[in-house]
């Protein structure tokens, strides 16, 4: 577990707030798979500052190449098709950050994550946020907000959901919720009671720490 690069990475404060919150949930020295790891910011922080044995799966080849050039272990692949090849229970934590809404089969992906990882962290934008609701109500058009900046026809986010929707999916997938955080104004996180009505209206996003029941 101490095979990773012994130099300091970015302080968590330099990470995007939602990523910093995810990083805080991950114990040092664990084995982590980051699905949809993007340019590798979170993974690099985990590897360099927390001594994590980190791997990544990323759809965009350019991002993958960047990650590998940064010394990270990342493969190009698609969460919708390539998770099946990972053995069961090999990772302590599997992260799916801001990606589930872009997958073709969110239910399948979530079940696969619970199979591969002992713990699963999922974060996503909350489509139940009041600004989204208001935008649709007033304009009568698909909401385009700061968090969800794409038009309906060119968005990669094909399976947007609300916090309540996700809770239902997690329940169906046999997951228990170990921790739930609301992302507020895209800059701070707060522990939430997921079943309360408040977060589904006031949280811009949510981060869940899950495990198999």
């Amino acid at each position, binding site marked *: 577990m101490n*095979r*990773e*690069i*012994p*130099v300091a990475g970015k302080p968590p404060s330099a990470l995007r707030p939602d990523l910093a919150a995810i990083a805080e949930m991950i114990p040092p020295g664990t084995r982590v798979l980051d699905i949809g790891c993007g340019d590798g910011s979170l993974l690099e922080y985990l590897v360099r500052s927390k001594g994590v*044995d980190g*791997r990544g799966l990323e759809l965009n*080849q350019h991002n*993958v*190449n960047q*990650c*590998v*050039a*940064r*010394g*990270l*272990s*990342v*493969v*190009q*692949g698609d969460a919708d098709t*390539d998770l099946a*090849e*990972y*053995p069961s229970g*090999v990772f302590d934590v599997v992260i799916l950050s801001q990606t589930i809404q872009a997958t073709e089969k969110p239910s399948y992906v979530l079940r696969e994550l619970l199979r591969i990882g002992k713990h699963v962290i999922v974060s996503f934008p909350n489509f139940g946020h009041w600004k989204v609701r208001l935008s649709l109500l007033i304009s009568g058009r698909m909401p385009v907000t700061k968090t969800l900046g794409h038009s309906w026809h060119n968005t990669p986010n094909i399976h947007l959901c609300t916090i309540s929707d996700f809770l239902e999916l997690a329940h169906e997938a046999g997951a228990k919720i170990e921790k739930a955080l609301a992302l507020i104004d895209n800059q701070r996180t707060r522990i939430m009671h997921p079943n309360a009505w408040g977060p589904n209206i006031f949280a811009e996003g949510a981060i869940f720490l899950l495990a198999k029941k």
Partner: protein
Amino acid sequence: MSDAAHPNFLRPLRAPAENRGHALDFGPGQPLVLDSGKRLSPFRIAYMTYGTLNATRSNAVLICHAISGDQFVAGTHPVTGKPGWWNNVVGPGKIIDTNRFFVICANVVGGCMGTTGPGEADPATGEPYGLSFPIVTIRDMVRAQAMLIDALGIEQLLCVIGGSMGGMQVLQWAASYPDRVYSAMPLATGARHSAQNIAFHEVGRQAIMADPDWRGGDYALAGVRPAKGLAVARMAAHITYLSEAALQRKFGRELQDRDALSFGFDADFQIESYLRYQGMTFVDRFDANSYLYLTRAMDYFDLAADYGGVLAEAFRGTKSRFCLVSFTSDWLFPTSENKRIAHALNAAGANVSFVEIESDRGHDAFLLDEPELFDTMRGFLGAAAAVKGIG
């Protein structure tokens, strides 16, 4: 085992002042046990080293060469007088920095640059082996390299790296000696040779064997060389190393030294002239029988077959880090073949990176100046060196 001062070469030296490297002789007590069941003994490994092995012997990088390569990776090749085949990558301050790393490259068994192969004399007869040389496999090549690494007193290699046939050796190293490979970088390769690749090799072999000067493999005794056959084999192979887009971009339908078609069979087109040149220069530095043996070794390679047909089993429990690289226009070892290896490594729970690089230069891209390849190599090797505390 004894250290011969200089390896012998089948060809005269164009640059005799250059470093000829080393040769290591393995005597009757240390035969190379081959996959075929035969034993090669005595045998010799010709190799080059660059840089200095550190006190903890932890900075060794083994480079495995491709079919037409040899141990002369960097600097000037003593036989051809040209720069080494990876001179753009290996050297002081370069990506594989010889100020930091101790770089080793050995001519493969069956080759023709000083390591025992079909062109060398069979001690039993005093005459060149020719076709009496035993068939060697990729695993045999790696077994011989492991004996060399033992002799150099190196327990674990920081990185084993190579492309194409070299990549096959890297995979075999990782499968056969997982504890001796800290990191592995197979480039533009496959865990098996495809039917199409075997087909192209067979065309090359038939071209050599159809040359009347081949003489059943005993051409050396007659003082001749199947130059035409080997040149044709090289021409056919060379096409597979490029891509249609690269050929079109470089040559198109441009004519060679003429304004109009000759209405004959001269090399009217630049591409013809280019291929003929490639064939001709290859003959000057390569042995035809070696070409037969090395193509065969690649054809026989099917790593999964040694593990019950399941490639992931070849890497079960491995602690090595892997970085695989493919190129979009490589149709000899396409991305799909490289990805198959990545999937198997994932399934084995291995630490693996996989990078596909956009390039129109075909299979040969791994030998060329490809900035994204260089960034990837630098990042991967740098990460391994950092963990190992190599400054």
